[in-house]
């Protein structure tokens, strides 16, 4: 049933994150099974983005570990990176290139030989602008383009940092549709967001509950 080569089961154990001298959060546990959804909430600066970057292996945890299908991610980081999509605040869109070229490049980075351009542009309503230079795109369209790479080169785990930012209602509806299709196919998604996002059966975790008290020693 699942189009993905392997079961998708991501577990974070006792994660702690340090930014500079400050311990942002500690003792954070989460589980993202196949078809699962995780919504991360919390005020600005509580560590939502840091947690997603940590789940994406872009940050090294100060303590704790990630398990991918039961094995520590540290043993095979490349294999795990091939199984995730990370969409952050910054979109990496080059103004001089077209959406099609950007999407082709991102898919190539993921090792995908035949990116599903048409499906990706259709999913986020970008057909009309697919061959324009990206400098003509609005902020919302750039966000849609960044999200389109989720569809262009499938990967079981989606890590989305404020995916709804800059999107209009049509864009939000398209994002929800993409996420539910992804979950129905056995994929999972972790979303950090301020806006309420309808994700049936999602686990909601308030990350400020894991904040380190002020004056907590730097040792975790």
């Amino acid at each position, binding site marked *: 049933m699942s189009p993905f080569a392997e079961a998708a089961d991501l577990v974070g154990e006792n994660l702690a994150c340090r930014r500079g001298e400050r311990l942002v959060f500690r003792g954070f546990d989460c589980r993202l099974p196949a078809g699962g959804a995780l919504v991360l909430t919390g005020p600005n600066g509580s560590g939502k983005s840091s947690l997603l970057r940590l789940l*994406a*292996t*872009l*940050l*090294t945890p100060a303590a704790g570990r990630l398990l991918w299908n039961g094995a520590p991610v540290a043993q095979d980081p*490349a294999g795990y*990176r*091939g199984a*995730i999509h*990370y969409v*952050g*605040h*910054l*979109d*990496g*869109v*080059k103004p*001089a*290139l077209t959406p099609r*070229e950007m999407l*082709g*490049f*991102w898919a*190539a*980075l*993921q*090792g995908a*030989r035949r990116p599903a351009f048409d499906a990706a542009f259709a999913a986020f309503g970008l057909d009309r602008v697919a061959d324009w230079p990206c400098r003509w795109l609005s902020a919302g369209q750039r966000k849609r383009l960044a999200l389109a790479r989720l569809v262009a080169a499938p990967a079981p785990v989606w890590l989305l940092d404020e995916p709804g930012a800059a999107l209009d209602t049509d864009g939000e509806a398209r994002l929800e549709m993409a996420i539910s299709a992804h979950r129905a196919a056995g994929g999972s998604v972790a979303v950090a967001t301020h806006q309420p996002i309808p994700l049936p059966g999602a686990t909601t975790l308030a990350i400020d509950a894991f904040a380190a008290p002020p004056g907590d020693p730097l040792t975790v």
Partner: protein
Amino acid sequence: MHAFFGLIRHDLRLAARQGGDIGLVLGFFVLAVMLFPFGVGPEPELLRRIAAGIIWVAALLAAVLSLDRLFAADHADGGLDLIALSAMPLELAVLARGAAHWLTTGLPLVVVSPLLALFLDLDSAALPALVLGLLLGTPAMSLIGAIAAALSLGARRPGVLMTLLVLPLYLPPLIFGTGAVEASLSAEGARAHLLLLAALMLAALPLAPFAAAAALRQALD
């Protein structure tokens, strides 16, 4: 390997679309060389003697000028995250970026250098040593430059820091490159110098990507 060539293709396409970048580096190279006859006086004897040094120093400075293109833009716009998460190791990504950088800066410098050599009246017997030397030296300069570019990410004045980091490291290619031209006009021959330049490049080829990738991981963390 698909990701590796995908990154090179992307970089080349970007460079072609923003042609100004290549033009800027080449323009700097040509203008810097043209300044010397005005500075030291138009005596053919003198110019002929220092031609190789002028061309090498100008090429080196032009290369430094282009180093901020390597990672700074991707670091600022989030593209570096995606490269770090790609299917290839970060070391390979650095190598791909270095290759694209050489194709868009080093190679054009090599191509233009014989014209500048003629302009400075360099002995035509020394041309092969000059071009071969640059052909071997510029890839090493792109690779070594990648280390400095990666290290200076996130610094307050990255351009200045990068220049300070990289210029001392460019001394060996400069010494052997100009040495090759000098030696090719004597009985000694340029062979030894060119072999040393090749050794430099071959050492930088595996070592620089590791150093630069480690620095990039620091910058992302």
